[in-house]
């Protein structure tokens, strides 16, 4: 069931940027959350991961980022085996990560939060800060306010900005659009795409599945710790099975209802 890949990808000779192979991982010894999950991202690709709540999507990202112990299987970055490497070492290698929750430093000011994003290369901070102020003017206005006071959506923006500070070569995003207003969601998705177009490989987990699949090159559907389906974004979005089990028909129904109105 895992090997539904078809089309160009099957004959792929390109080298993977990040690859998770048969990862088995979990939080408590003896209880595995991921049961042999595989994922590969090629240069310049944008990968979406969707799936039910508790499927292990966040766990997969964390396992790739060294936050969850990988019991078996491997994670590679380019040629390097990065299984169970410490996170700060991954950051040095150019991997960026935005967690699903707790994704800002609440008692640091907004500016300091951003500075943390580029901790390893302090020389470039000014330049990158300016770039971020351009992208997120709200943040600029309140740059001395502590991040703990921000609203849910504002935090999410800040978290994203923090990850963008360091210009990563691989970006792992866990539900970047959650809690954002529609226009910001759109903007986030487009911006991610744009970043992706500059050659950054993006792996994102999304519950806004429809949107996610629209913009992703390829998608994986995770269920119970395994990748149940994979394929290009559009294939998945139109796969009736996927729709029934994971996407639901709400958006479609609502849109139809409205259009019929």
């Amino acid at each position, binding site marked *: 069931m895992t090997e539904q890949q078809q089309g160009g990808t099957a004959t792929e000779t390109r080298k993977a940027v990040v690859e998770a192979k048969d990862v088995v991982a979990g939080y408590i010894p003896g209880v595995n959350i991921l049961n042999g999950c595989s994922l590969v991202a090629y240069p310049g690709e944008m990968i979406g991961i969707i799936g039910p709540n508790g499927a292990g999507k966040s766990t997969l990202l964390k396992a790739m980022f060294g936050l969850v112990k990988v019991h078996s299987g491997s994670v590679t970055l380019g040629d390097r085996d990065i299984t169970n490497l410490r996170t*700060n070492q991954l*950051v040095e290698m150019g991997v960026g990560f935005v967690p699903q929750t707790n994704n800002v*430093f609440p008692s640091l000011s907004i500016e300091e939060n951003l*500075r943390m*994003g580029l901790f390893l290369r302090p020389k470039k901070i000014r330049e990158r800060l300016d770039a971020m102020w351009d992208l997120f003017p709200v943040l600029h206005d309140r740059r001395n306010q502590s991040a703990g006071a921000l609203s849910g959506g504002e935090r999410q923006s800040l978290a994203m900005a923090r990850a963008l500070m360091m210009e990563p070569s691989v970006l792992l995003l866990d539900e970047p659009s959650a809690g954002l207003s529609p226009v910001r969601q759109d903007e986030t998705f487009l911006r991610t795409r744009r970043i992706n177009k500059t050659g950054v490989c993006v792996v994102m987990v999304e519950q806004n599945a429809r949107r996610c699949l629209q913009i992703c090159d390829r998608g994986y559907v995770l269920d119970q710790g395994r990748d149940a389906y994979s394929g290009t974004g559009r294939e998945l979005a139109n796969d009736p099975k996927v729709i029934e089990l994971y996407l639901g028909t709400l958006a479609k129904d609502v849109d139809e209802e409205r259009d019929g109105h």
Partner: protein
Amino acid sequence: MRRGVAGLVLALLLAPVLALISSGPASAVDTLCLPGPDKACIAGTIRTDEGPLADVTLTVTDESGASQEVTTSESGKWNVQVDTEGKYVVKVDAESLPDDLDVKTGEVTVVTKFGVTKPALLTIRTADYSATTSKFDELVQSTVNGLRLGLLLALASVGLSLIYGTTGLSNFAHAEQVTLGGMLGYLLINQNGLGLWIGGLLVVVLCAFTGWFQDRVLWQPLRRRGLGLTQMMIVTIGLSLALQYVYQYTVGARTVRVLQDNPSVREFGPVTITNQSIVAMVISVIVLAGVGYALLRTRIGRATRAVSDNPALASASGIDTDRVIRLVWTVAMGLAGLSGLLYALVTNGIKWDSGLQILLLLFAAVTLGGLGTAFGALIGAIIIGLVVELSPVLGMPGDFKYATALLILILLLLVRPQGLLGKPQRVG
């Protein structure tokens, strides 16, 4: 019988007794009066607040009016032997006194008892004697003492606060680290004769190393294993216990001094202060300012705050949290060691439980300023220091000076729960 008067003493159970039995070197008492079974003594010393007065004449008159005269010796001492029990009036002869003296009590009645030497207390003052000191002077002196104590507490509590701030750990062994500074000072400077500055530097370096080492072998592995904070707190309690007894075992349970010499003293108006205290205060201020600058303005300082906020995210930002925390331990322990050394110098001694005695003050300082804020700890420590030193001057019983500091802490927390510099947290 070797000491001959025991039987007699039994008869005099209820009275205060001073029986001169055998004398050691006679120099102390110029002429002796030996009370016996049928002899009593009256003795005293004539002195002003400036010193004993020689050659003063006194008359001792009994109830019948018979009197005898004595003259004080070089050391102002005099005594007479009498052979009846009863009231005697001792009067100083004003003529024999130097001029310009104020005789407060020139005459006193003494009831003698056989076998006993009774004191006759005559009070003579110089003309410019004043029985009170200015409250203001006392206040100024105590304020300076308070600042001094506050700065020393600050040195130690900033480290405590840093550790709490970065790891969330309440380190109960911090006090022993303070003690360690003093103990090492004693060993290196007093015992091994190192110079104060070299020795002091070495103490700080060694203490900092213990911080590094502790984190390396203990705290880091525990963090890795995900040990809870309360559990870690109990580990610090265990460590504290072990260290206290290591000190008892190695150095002993008595007070030891880093320097044997008495510190030289300076006076600034009403304030008397030792040179050591001045140097200690200056060092504290410089070090604290340095730490403060490092925390606020440097990258690594920000990193410590980031780690304290959200360690997982910090490492996801590329911060090597372990290194940051190790640095914090190293610095905090170095500061604690420095504080202990200065404390031992300024308070003239260090003992196995010296740190323990101020532990609560350290925690109070940290909390007063706002948990986890290093500057808060500084301000808190100074407030605590001032309260401890000033409350007796302002009329609190001396017993309660620590209690007063703690009470102030409680009251302040009621008004400002987040501490002086802490920020309230957002809900929801």
